């Protein structure tokens, strides 16, 4: 095999080397160096820093997809013709910024839509009233553990868990309604502390 023949089949190197190719690489220093350089470039390309500016076609493809979704409009031809150099420069920086903003906004909206039905399902029971179906599964597991170790204490633990869960529910509502209120945060911390104490006592302390 000659060097010219080798360069012709070079693009197909990724799919595997034939014996002939291997023999040529072993005997020809120039072609071997060429393959080495190409491999080094390939590895370096993977390590490209994010700060390095991508080529213009990246911005153009983002612009195209934003236009497709109707999020940005094609500027008018006349204005585009006269302002293309200026706008082109501005768009280069605005488009990725706008894309990032839209992604974050979309995620937030999705999460809010997801949370609201959950809150609506829970409803707002009156203070101090705990409905039976609000006992989380972890609490049920805890009660089963208590029942197995000390059946006589199960009812006491259930009553206490219901009180604490009601506390947490009210405290969470208060904290959500008043996120800057230190007292509301204090209620929440206290409520969680109570829950933690109940779990600790059930699982670790006082039971045999």
């Amino acid at each position, binding site marked *: 095999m000659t060097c010219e023949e080798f360069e012709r089949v070079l693009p197909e190197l990724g799919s595997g080397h034939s014996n002939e190719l291997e023999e040529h690489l072993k005997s020809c220093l120039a072609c071997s160096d060429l393959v080495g350089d190409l491999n080094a470039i390939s590895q370096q390309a993977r390590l490209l820093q994010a700060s390095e500016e991508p080529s213009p076609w990246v911005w153009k493809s983002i612009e195209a997809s934003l236009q497709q979704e109707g999020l940005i409009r094609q500027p008018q031809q006349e204005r585009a013709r006269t302002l293309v150099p200026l706008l082109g420069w501005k768009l280069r920086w605005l488009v990725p910024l706008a894309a990032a903003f839209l992604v974050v906004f979309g995620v937030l909206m999705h999460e809010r839509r997801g949370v609201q039905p959950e809150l609506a399902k829970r409803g707002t029971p009156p203070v101090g009233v705990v409905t039976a179906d609000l006992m989380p599964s972890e609490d049920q597991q805890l009660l089963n553990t208590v029942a197995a170790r000390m059946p006589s204490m199960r009812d*006491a633990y259930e*009553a206490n868990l219901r009180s*604490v869960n009601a506390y947490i529910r009210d*405290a969470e509502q208060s904290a959500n309604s008043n996120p800057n209120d230190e*007292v509301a945060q204090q209620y929440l911390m206290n409520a969680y*502390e109570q829950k933690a*104490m109940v779990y600790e006592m059930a699982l670790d302390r006082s039971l*045999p």
Partner: protein
Amino acid sequence: MYRKQSTAIFAVVMVLVLATFAAAETSRKEFHFKVGRRASISIINQYGPISVKPGPGKHVTVIATLYSDKVEIDQSKSGKRVSINSHLLEGADATTGRVDYEVLVPGDTNVTLRSTTGPLHVERLYGDVIIEGNTALVDVRDVSSGHVHIKTLNGAITLTNVSDAHVEITSVSGDVALNTVNGSLVHVNSSTGKIHYDGDFGEAGDYSLTSHSGDIEAIAPYYASIDVVARSVQGKVENDFPLLPEHTSFVPRSGSAFAGTMGKAASSVKLLSFSGKIHLKKR
């Protein structure tokens, strides 16, 4: 004849009494440990009272009364740490597994008690006191200069004459009563239990009495020196003292919140409840 009848009756009574004692099968065990300064003792007793008082010298004396052979005492000592554990055997319950403890310790001993039923009593110590009880009644009195940490589910807690202490109390539904309690930190966290404080709030202390739905009543003398904030989200709030207004992060609303200072505002006092009533009373 009359004498013979009396003797016979007496004999029958004695037999019955002895039979009762025999049936109870109580047994008493005593343990003695020699310890140094700032020793610590830990007692885990599922069923039965534990009473801890100061004793002479550098000795720990444990007197245990067992109510059946379905419970045994595991005891150990490692350096200055003494550990006592009521080990319940198969078939033990609240009656047969009961052990009554009377413990004498040096005054500076750190005490840790854990029980389901209690009651638990500690007095006249100046080491740390850590108590955990599910339904146990807890009584701590005449304790000073240490950390007092108490946790119960629905056991009532009473602290009397506790001074210069770091007090943290958490109870879900047990009522908490603090009589003449002061220190650098006094925190009570209750869910549905009532909180009652009767004292002068000391000096330079941080007092926080918080509940979910339990009522909070604080009784203080006219000379109390406090910076007080009281707030109930859904409950009623009352105040018997003329307070100097102060700036707060919330708007004090008559009937649901108040804030202000008395005297030199030496101690910070927070009375917070979600739906319980709060009353700051003048003694």
